[in-house]
């Protein structure tokens, strides 16, 4: 399968001029760690370096497509966003067939600005939910879990308000201190995304269901919060009806 590895090296060379320059100077160093045969290394090293630059706008086009999903965090990140193609996140994702959209979020979360990092975490959760399968596999009998089309994220308080302000082009508020827990959810009919703040009890319940869990364990979480068995059943039935638990 090394032709896949070689093609992925080509992708990296087309997006990262620094990587292409390193290849020209020292191919063994630039291609270290990639499972290529000696012939494959020779082929890629023999390409005229100008061939990697025939479409200089390509990285910006990809960045613009990624920015559609990270409009808030990318707009605040500035130059850090532009450095994505030189990042380890990018190179690892391409070489390992990862999702560029998801690792772009990881790259933005590395930003030194806490607002950028928080927004990136929220927009990353939205990107994950957007990509959730339409028909996820069911759990074992008597087990439940959070649907892939829903995600619980704990962020500095004010992150959702910051996102809303940036989208509305209002003056952005600050974030923190303290935390807020948000549910990011994809509507099964419209495929649109919703973000809502979670009360601590519901947040604890959904957090417990991040992995498949016996239903009785979720009942126990609700009872620990002070509700009786009937109320626990109603809460869980409601979450199942809403498609949040599956």
């Amino acid at each position, binding site marked *: 399968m090394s*032709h896949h590895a070689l093609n992925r090296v080509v*992708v990296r060379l087309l997006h990262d001029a620094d990587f292409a320059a390193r290849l020209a100077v020292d191919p063994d160093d630039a291609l270290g760690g990639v499972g290529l045969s000696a*012939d*494959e290394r020779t082929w890629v090293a023999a390409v005229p370096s100008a*061939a990697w630059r025939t479409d200089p706008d390509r990285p910006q086009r990809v960045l613009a497509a990624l920015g559609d999903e990270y409009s808030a965090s990318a707009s605040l990140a500035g130059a850090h966003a532009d450095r994505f193609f030189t990042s380890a996140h990018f190179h690892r994702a391409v070489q390992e*067939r990862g*999702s*560029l959209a998801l690792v772009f979020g990881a790259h933005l979360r590395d930003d030194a600005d806490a607002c950028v990092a928080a927004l990136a975490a929220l927009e990353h959760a939205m990107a994950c939910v957007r990509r959730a399968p339409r028909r996820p596999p069911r759990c074992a009998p008597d087990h439940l879990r959070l649907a892939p089309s829903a995600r619980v994220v704990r962020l500095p308080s004010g992150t959702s308000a910051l996102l809303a302000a940036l989208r509305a082009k209002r003056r952005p508020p600050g974030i923190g201190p303290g935390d807020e827990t948000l549910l990011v959810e994809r509507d099964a009919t419209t495929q649109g995304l919703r973000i809502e703040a979670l009360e601590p009890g519901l947040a604890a319940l959904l957090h417990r269901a991040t992995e498949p869990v016996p239903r009785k364990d979720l009942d126990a979480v609700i009872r620990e919060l002070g509700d009786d068995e009937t109320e626990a059943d109603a809460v869980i039935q409601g979450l199942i009806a809403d498609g949040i638990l599956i």
Partner: protein
Amino acid sequence: MRFAERVERLPHLGLGVSTEYGAGDAAGSLDVLALRDAHPEYARFLEIGVETAKGLDRHAMAWVARGLPTTYHYLDVNLDEPEDFDDEWLEDVRAVAATIKPAWMCGDAGLWHLGARERGHMLLLPPVLTPDAADDMAAGIVRLREATSHEVLPENPPGQVYLGPLHLLDFFARVAERADTGLLLDCAHLAMFQRLRGHAPLDGFDGFPLERVVEIHVAGGSERTTDGFAWVEDDHTPGVLADTWQIVEHVIPRTPTLRAVVYECERNPLGACLDGFARLAALLSP
């Protein structure tokens, strides 16, 4: 049933045009239905470029609503990656196919996206030209053909960098043999490859199964130079390069199974494309 028998069931579409989502809305682009009305002999069918995440645009839907012939050109599958054939994508492909009722499916057999399928990447790189890559490609073609019950014609993709020891035509000869499939030969993409490798336009045809070519593409390109590196931009302008015409004129009389020719000029006004259509129509006339 072997390809040699299956091909007999494929319709003769003749000369047609291509489109993809949004192409018809760009300023100065070809209005495919207007072309059909004014010159039906140049637009006997429409090759619809499909990214399932986007679906079909109003131009494609208007063509389909008139019951006119189509082919389905995929824009979102890396044929040599088994992970790309997920159930949801295949379901979407079948839904689009059920709508447009294509004569067959076809498209560039290359790398359309990095990693998992994503919107907006539209990368399109050629495969590495090795026997292993050809065999993986063939497996994907069989998989898609069986999953959709449509013929799947792999197309040689464009590129500015081709890696691997095989000639492009030998690579696709192996793909065709291993997948027992027909082929879509893009003459403009082949001309690009021949220039990059220092070949003459007709080099490499000796081992290529022209009897498997069902469709050909013809398009213009622009000669570019980047820091001394000469290459051709596959920009689908009306100006078809002389190398490409040489390939087209070689191939058409030698392909007994040829069913369709697409002049890819979708982003140009009709008047700029008529000479190209006329030349192709003359080549196809008995």
